[in-house]
């Protein structure tokens, strides 16, 4: 489904990624872990179009998307969840969730779907709250839900468990385990990834240092 070939990225002489080669099949969940600054987020940003690689290509469903704009990549079905939540702080939680669905389902159906997902997680009380008024954990949950709800072909989750307490980590795992999407998830530690990923990669200093098949 996704193929990354010889991907490298350099920022002002600092090498963030070196010759990354990666293939992700449909319905696979790939976990990427590594220390801070190893290049995990950079890889996801390049795939989602928010960064351009210094060299290399990204191919999605047979199409070269290396130089595509982020919104076009999003419309193709690759959705990226930011490490630091990027929400529409002046809009309600419901609006934030519905935005990705509106084009396909129309406004009312999109709102219905959003309310449904909030009820499943016992979060209906947040529906009319402004996203800017949420707690850190709630923002993180919303950041992931915002992309999940659109049923993407490929989901890129950048540290979805970062700054979450154990209660919210459980909620997050519950959400992710329910899905059958193709996912790439980054985290600092392998322990959490092992619970959802089918295989894990360690990135160190911009290179794939270790590869482990979990399931």
């Amino acid at each position, binding site marked *: 489904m996704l193929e990354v070939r010889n991907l490298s990225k350099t920022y002002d002489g600092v090498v963030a990624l070196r010759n990354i080669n990666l293939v992700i099949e449909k319905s696979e969940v790939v976990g990427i872990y590594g220390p801070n600054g190893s290049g995990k987020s950079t890889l996801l940003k390049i795939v*989602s179009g*928010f960064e351009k690689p210094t060299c290399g290509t990204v191919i999605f469903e047979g199409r070269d998307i290396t130089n595509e*704009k*982020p*919104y076009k990549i*999003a*419309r193709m079905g690759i*959705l*990226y969840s*930011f490490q630091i939540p*990027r*929400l*529409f*702080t*002046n*809009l309600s939680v419901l*609006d934030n969730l*519905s*935005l*990705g669905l*509106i*084009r396909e389902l*129309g*406004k009312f159906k999109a709102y219905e779907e959003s309310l449904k997902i909030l009820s499943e997680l016992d979060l209906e009380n947040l529906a009319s709250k402004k996203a800017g008024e949420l707690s850190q954990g709630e923002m993180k949950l919303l950041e992931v839900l*915002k*992309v999940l709800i*659109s049923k993407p072909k490929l989901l890129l989750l950048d540290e979805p468990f970062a700054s979450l307490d154990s209660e919210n980590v459980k909620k997050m795992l519950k959400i992710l385990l329910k899905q059958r999407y193709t996912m790439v998830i980054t985290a600092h530690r392998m322990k959490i990834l092992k619970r959802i990923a089918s295989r894990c990669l360690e990135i160190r200093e911009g290179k794939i240092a270790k590869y482990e098949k979990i399931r």
Partner: protein
Amino acid sequence: MKDSQAILGLMVATVIFAPFILKLTLVFWIMNLAVVYSILVLSWIIMNKYTGYTSFAHSFPFGISAYLFALYGFLSIPVSCFISFVIFLILSKLNKEKFVFSTFILAIVFWMAVPYLTFNYDNIVVGGEEGLSLKSLPLMDSYLLSSSFLITSLFLLLFLEKTRVGLYLLAVGNDEVAAMGLGLNVNLIKSVCFVISSLIAVFSGVFYAVFFGHVSPDVFSVEVSLFPFIATILGQSYPVSVLISFALILSTRASVLVKYHLLLYASLLVVFPKLRRYAIARGAKFI
């Protein structure tokens, strides 16, 4: 449409039609001025709310359309709109903070340069510090024209916010990167907003020109640049901002405050951030 917004919209419509009941020329005259400035305020809010860019140069499309209308008539509308759109688009390549400064510089530069601009019109030199004269519309006609434009725009914008397009616009104005990540073509949306904002500002300049029958370099003044900013002191709700525009124009033009209106605007600018935060925290649900 949210109940509170609809009520405010109806209040605005009532205020606009009040002069027809009162039938006082002075009231008509002041209300006409208020309507023209309110249209300018609407155009400013469109840019600020849906693109996130704060402009201090809305006097530019306002003034340039007034000047060009005085010279060339209706052709000025698409030309002024195009010029304004291009300038805003170029300046939007800067970040949002630099956009504020650069639009302010643009407004001041034009304000200073326009008194030196003269035109050869029918072998007569016109313009300069005197400005340009043109045939004005009768007060009633001018008022009907501008107030129907204002009411139509106001209700269209209130309705738009409730549609999916409105949600896209609000999303882009809030966070461009997040909007891109959800598949919105942010550059296209911003361009469309710049066009609509410029067009509405251009119309307000045209209404100003036909109302007064005279256009002077003061149409580019700092006062005009800052007015929309001050009118949105309690937030970017369309009806509230229009009501505040009316209140400002009425209070400063219809009383002893005429000589001090710029000082009033300056004081409002000073308290603006605090007042805005207070209003948003206390009154957000209603506004």
